[in-house]
């Protein structure tokens, strides 16, 4: 059991670094299906795991390659802090079944967004990209 949990953490961590995500989107279903947790419990536990800077090691690698927009990152952190509170208030009173269904729909939407790729070679995107990196 303990070993499963440790290995699960490692596997999720690889995705964190590889994709630049928090990992909760993998952790929550993994805890629900592999560790048989209730949906609310899995989500609360996932938020606990994300409190320490789990992505710091991965960030270092991106930083070395100058692939970081610190200003935008700080703005995003502020926005997510505010929005997170609202989301928590919405989720807690929901029934586990509804929350699970919503989570499923969210995964489908996120998968769709993740799949879509803006064309990096298009001249418009390139010029905007340059501008945003200066800003």
């Amino acid at each position, binding site marked *: 059991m303990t070993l499963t949990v440790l290995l*699960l*953490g*490692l596997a999720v*961590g*690889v*995705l*964190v*670094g*590889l*994709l*630049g*995500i*928090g990992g*909760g*989107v993998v952790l*929550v279903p993994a805890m629900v299906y592999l560790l048989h*947790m209730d949906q*609310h419990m899995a989500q*609360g*536990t996932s*938020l*606990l795991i994300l409190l320490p*800077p*789990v*992505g*710091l*090691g*991965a*960030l270092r*690698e*991106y930083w070395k390659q100058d692939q*970081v*927009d610190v200003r*935008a990152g*700080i*703005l*995003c*952190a502020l926005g*997510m*802090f505010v*929005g*997170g*509170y609202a*989301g928590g208030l919405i*989720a*807690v009173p929901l029934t586990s079944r509804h929350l*699970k*269904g*919503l*989570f*499923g729909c969210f*995964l489908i939407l*996120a*998968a769709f*967004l*993740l*799949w879509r790729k*803006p064309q990096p070679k298009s001249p418009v995107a390139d010029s905007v*990209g340059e501008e945003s990196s200066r*800003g």
Partner: protein
Amino acid sequence: MAEGLARDASIFVAACVCGVASGLFGIGGGVLLVPFLALFFAFGQHRAQGTSLVALIPPTGLLAFLAYARAGYVHWKIGLLLIPGVIVGGILGGLLAKRLQPQRMRQVFAGVMFVLGIWQAAAAWWR
């Protein structure tokens, strides 16, 4: 200057949306933030991922976490056991991201998420 401000404001609003998803679903929010930065703000894939990792350094989920903790929805033992693995794995993933085509990885991951999403939604529906 005004343009920069408008961009800052829209990034903040987009992040608020990610935050709601983060609190609602108990996730980091990066899974939404990375595509947002890439699609709406013309970030390159690596840059979007690096910036998302910056946003995940401070405990942005703290307020949401407290809401869950108050209701007793936290499994402390498993949570604490998962943390070290995620940190070590994160370093490995960061190193791998330099070598691999993140685009391909992302699509594989999106496919897995899609299947998982349909499975979860269906399981919640027909119970």
